[in-house]
């Protein structure tokens, strides 16, 4: 399992940016073809770099200069596809809302102007050197890789 897949952001700015989970990237990309056609950067062929550092813009499938309205409507149309309430209809492999949480986190960050500005700065910094990393609690990796919750047969007994 690759170790430095996840995107690093200064945690003091907005801890919710840290929720990136890159292991789901492939499935997200597969499904994204059926979604809004705004994801034009998807065919840029940089499959490897996309997997390792999928940006919040890529999660929402919008351009880097997308307006607030565009971000909002992208979030809504993605929510309709990935929210667990609707996802059961379309996707047999139910992911317990993981994709949706990711989309939500991206939306929260990009819809807040100051958080978005900080994020854009961090993107530029990351662009310079691939290994430029920010301080990041170790446990974050733990959460994405080891904390898999499922539904249990006994859930009804509560």
């Amino acid at each position, binding site marked *: 399992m690759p*170790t430095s897949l996840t995107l690093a952001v200064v*945690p003091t700015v907005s801890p*919710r940016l840290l*929720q990136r989970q890159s292991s789901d990237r492939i499935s997200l990309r597969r499904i994204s073809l059926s979604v809004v056609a705004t994801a034009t950067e998807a065919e840029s062929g940089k499959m490897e770099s996309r997997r390792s550092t999928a940006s919040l813009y890529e999660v929402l499938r919008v351009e880097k200069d997308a307006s607030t309205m565009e971000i*909002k*409507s992208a979030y*809504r*149309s993605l*929510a*309709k596809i990935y*929210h*667990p*309430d*609707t996802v*059961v*209809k379309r996707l047999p492999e139910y992911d*317990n*809302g*993981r994709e*949706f*949480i990711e989309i*939500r986190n991206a939306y*929260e960050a990009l819809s807040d102007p100051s958080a978005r500005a900080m994020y854009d700065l961090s993107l530029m910094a990351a662009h310079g050197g691939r290994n430029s990393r920010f*301080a990041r*609690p*170790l*446990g*974050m*990796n*733990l*959460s994405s890789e*080891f*904390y898999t*919750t499922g*539904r249990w047969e006994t*859930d*009804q*007994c*509560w």
Partner: protein
Amino acid sequence: MAEQAYTVASDSETTGEEKSSTFPEIAIGVDIGTSQCSVAVWNGSQVELLKNTRNQKMMRSYVTFKEDTPSGGVSSQLFHEHDLLSGATIFNMKRLIGRVDTDPVIHASKNLPFLVQTLDIGVRPFIAALVNNMWRSTTPEEVLAIFLVELRAMAEAQLKRPIRNIVLTVPVSFSRFQLTRIERTCAMAGLHVLRLMPEPTAVALLYGQHQQQASHENTGSGCEKIALIFNMGAGYCDVAVTATAGGVSQIKALAGYTIGGEDLLQNMMCYLLPDSQSLFKNHGVKEIKSMGLLRVATQDAIHQLSSQTNVQVDVDLGDGLKICKVVDREEFEEVNKNLFEKCESLIIQCLQDAKVEVEDVNDVIIVGGCSFIPKVKNLVTNIFKGKEPYKGMNPLEAAVCGAAVEGAVASGINDPFGYLDLLTIQATPLAIGIRANGNNFIPLIPRNTTMPARKDVVFTTIHDNQTEALILVYEGEGKKVEENHMLGYFKITGIPRAPKGVPEINVCMDIDAANVLRVLAGVVMPGCRQPAIPVMEVRMPTVDDGHGWCAEALNRTYGASLNLVTLQKKA
């Protein structure tokens, strides 16, 4: 009788093959109010409210214990005044469920015309109905379950199919502990809760559907609309701010409190008979009758004050106790001044939490039984500078209709016309966190976080070579843990020996779309990639009654020896 209806229903189900294949079981929407309840179902193109054999859509929420067979408000003949006066009828279950006997709401319930006894030590109250001059003990769960069984039989007889899945509306202010009680109650009645929906969010979904239909009719007006939903019933007051566009309703904020028509009623009863509390303390047969009479008379008076400016209260409570008084609307409003102020503050708090200005709100929706009270309507419209409330929703049916729509959406039924191209994105009404840094409550999932949600925070040990740590999970808004509800606790053992502050204890909270909370905890030593011990996963809440006691007992036994602090990351 109910049994028979059930058998017939399942017979026809097996013959109607093609019907069951195109329609997966649609969950029905159920709104159990403190005072009234209703059931609705999506029929493929619209919501249909189910009626009982007496052609009622709204059924009183109560159960009367007679001899051996309890009967609820769905099937039994009428809400005889006599039933209410005999002590055999239990109601207000929704106010009593999942509360301990130190709760002020339980104390306020002690002058209901049945037995609510408290020991004031933080255990569940003793509740009993008077049957043949004997107190028959029961629980709010049992009473609700009896009621739900009746509702279920009614729905099965009408829909001619077995019912298992339901979407139930609940008050915003319900703790997770209360929610599990509700789920357990449903399980007792053989029902599976597909979703528990805070009442105003069910209304929000219905609003979303209205908007969606409107935008279909005049294409192009798919812009975002912000609505404030104010829902005040007999037991609870709830507020929500929702942003709706393209059939997606994002709940931006929720606020709720245990105030409703019941409190207005109790205040009025106190006003009409100031020493009622002490008069009724003994709960004798006579007192129960007087209590019931006063209750019925006061309730009637309040209802009449909605349409007229004053009312004559004339009631003989027996034993020479008579009330003969003209009450006008101003008096009623003055007596309940504090309650109305609380309602206002809930709305203002909800707007602030949603970061929405009064001017940004496109629609103000007022629903619930109390929406008929002029003062309630006024206080809401005053906040919105006289804006006319949203029309086109039945104030008593909006929540159950929303629940029925959610039932259809969440059941994933075939929807060729796109009526159900809807989504409500829920938010958590209360913060959830753990005890750390002494007695402080450290929220991991703040209030109004979008669900499903998953957040984590890293903690560390406070002693050198500390090998164990207690994770105490709380829900609420208080800064100190004592002010919040304890949801559960567990111990992490086997932390590798290290100086204090070195082990990284990662606590993660996960709420899925069905609102199930799981708390996970793992230990990582700096420099290691793998967790040092197996990660623990605990579904919450785990504590039963007397959760206040658990915290005290843990504190007494372990002191600060197993405490944690938040880990300050070195730069």
